[in-house]
């Protein structure tokens, strides 16, 4: 076995261990802040797996989008609203857990089925494109995947408009069709501290 192959195997096993343990930590840890940071670690290791597959552009995009944007925003949101409060015990937790476990197992079996039935090899042998992949991704995005690409951008636009409506409730508190005031006031007015109870 050559040195390059050995390095690759070691990297792969370390990365997959980190992904699995980190993902378990994300859902099992009690402290939500730890979960959020571990999620970042999982995203990073997935980027490492992409690097092992010679997909450096996808790896960098993974880091930029998932770690740099999604995870930072998740942590940001947690830190802005992180109130220490005792959560109430949920009723019939056992049956809920059984249902969610079975759903997860179904998904897992589906994924395993896909993994086994799909032919993962490239159409042409030795067709590793490596650094060329950036160009290929661009070509695909603007030809056969143009519609999904555009639909995704519309989805993002919708999310953004929704966020603006939620954030500016103090401005848009009128029902558009009837013109009547709608009870959409903020709990906390911009210049009013939260601790003063409203009447």
């Amino acid at each position, binding site marked *: 076995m*050559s040195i390059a192959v050995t390095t690759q195997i070691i990297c792969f096993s370390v990365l997959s261990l980190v992904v699995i343990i980190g993902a378990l930590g994300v859902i099992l840890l009690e402290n939500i802040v730890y979960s959020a940071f571990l999620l970042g670690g999982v995203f990073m290791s997935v980027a490492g797996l992409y690097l092992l597959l010679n997909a450096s*552009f996808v790896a960098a995009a993974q*880091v930029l989008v998932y770690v740099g944007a999604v995870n*930072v925003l998740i942590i940001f949101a947690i*830190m*802005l609203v992180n109130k220490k409060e005792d959560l109430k015990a949920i009723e019939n937790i056992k049956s809920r857990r059984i249902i969610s476990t079975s759903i997860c197992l179904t998904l897992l079996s589906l994924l395993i089925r896909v993994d086994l039935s799909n032919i993962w090899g490239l159409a042409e042998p030795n067709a590793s494109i490596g650094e060329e992949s950036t160009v290929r991704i661009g070509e695909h995005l603007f030809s056969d995947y143009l519609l999904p690409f555009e639909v995704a951008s519309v989805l993002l636009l919708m999310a953004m408009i929704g966020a603006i409506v939620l954030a500016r409730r103090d401005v848009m508190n009128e029902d558009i069709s009837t013109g009547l005031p709608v009870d959409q006031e903020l709990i906390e007015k911009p210049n009013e501290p939260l601790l003063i109870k409203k009447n």
Partner: protein
Amino acid sequence: MNSGLDLEYSFNEILKGFGLSNELAHIIWLPLPMLVVLVSAVVGVLVTVWLERKISAAAQQRIGPEYAGALGVLQPIADGLKLLVKEDIIPAKADSILFTAGPILVLVPVILSWLIVPFGQNLLISNVGIGIFLWIALSSIQPIGLLMSGYASNNKYSLLGGLRAAAQSISYEIPLALSVLAIVLMTNSLSTIDIVNQQSGAGILSWNIWRQPVGFIIFWICALAECERLPFDLPEAEEELVAGYQTEYAGMKFALFYLGSYINLILSALLVSILYLGGWGFPIPVEIIARVLNLPIDAPVIQVFTASIGIIMTVLKAYLLVFVAILLRWTTPRVRIDQLLDLGWKFLLPISLANLLVTAGLKLAFPQFFGG
């Protein structure tokens, strides 16, 4: 385009002369450029710290460090030694794991980004195809480290500092990436080597700063904001937040933040010089000098000359920019957080989008000047 010195090739040839296999020679070679770059980054920080002290002193009509070595050149080493032997304090109510991991997460991406900084045609650690995009991706990890240390310190000033740092770096990353995108559009490549080569046609006249003046200013403002330098040092604004996310840090952990911010400053200056000021290019193309001296371009003398001129030019340009950054720090007042976010989202973002659009249009109209 593979002219110039190739140290890796000649090094491997020497080792193979000793009877080592190709693979083993490669493994012995691998850590060397990384070590060289790490050492040069740290030395660069020492020089910058000294410059910062001296220039700030000059700006305030003081003398500055004077007794540690000639003109106080040993002052940064004394600073470093002091931080090294200081007690490492973790506050009792702090979260010790995250408290320790925070500074590491801030420093590592910055050092990793040196991977793509070229000092000459073959003088960089790795000519990865995604080049400049790697830097943008890596620099987006930093806010996580800042948030982590801000949260783990269990201190309201730290938390506010960390949140401000994250908000600032998220907002300024977008115009930064868009101005880089305009350069990439002109180069047809993400690789830093290609970006410099594309500017090397006619010496100083072909530098990107003439073709991308708006992009240059946007990039410089955003780079300063990403480095948290005044006028954008809100995350550690002394008068409001004590020292922001680093309030609770002492000793070596504080030194990691300190090192990280200065390495980031030098890195930003290097990238500005690579993207807009022709990288390792001399204002007069080396080809013309070789023709005047009547030597072929691949003569050994010319090759060594080109390589050393390349390193000198890159470092010189970067330090000129560092000088500007230091002057800015000691002459401009700090902006408020709302002004900072307004500038980022309402001014720089639209301008950089327009810049990208105009660049694309010019590329279609004048392909010979804007890289068809």
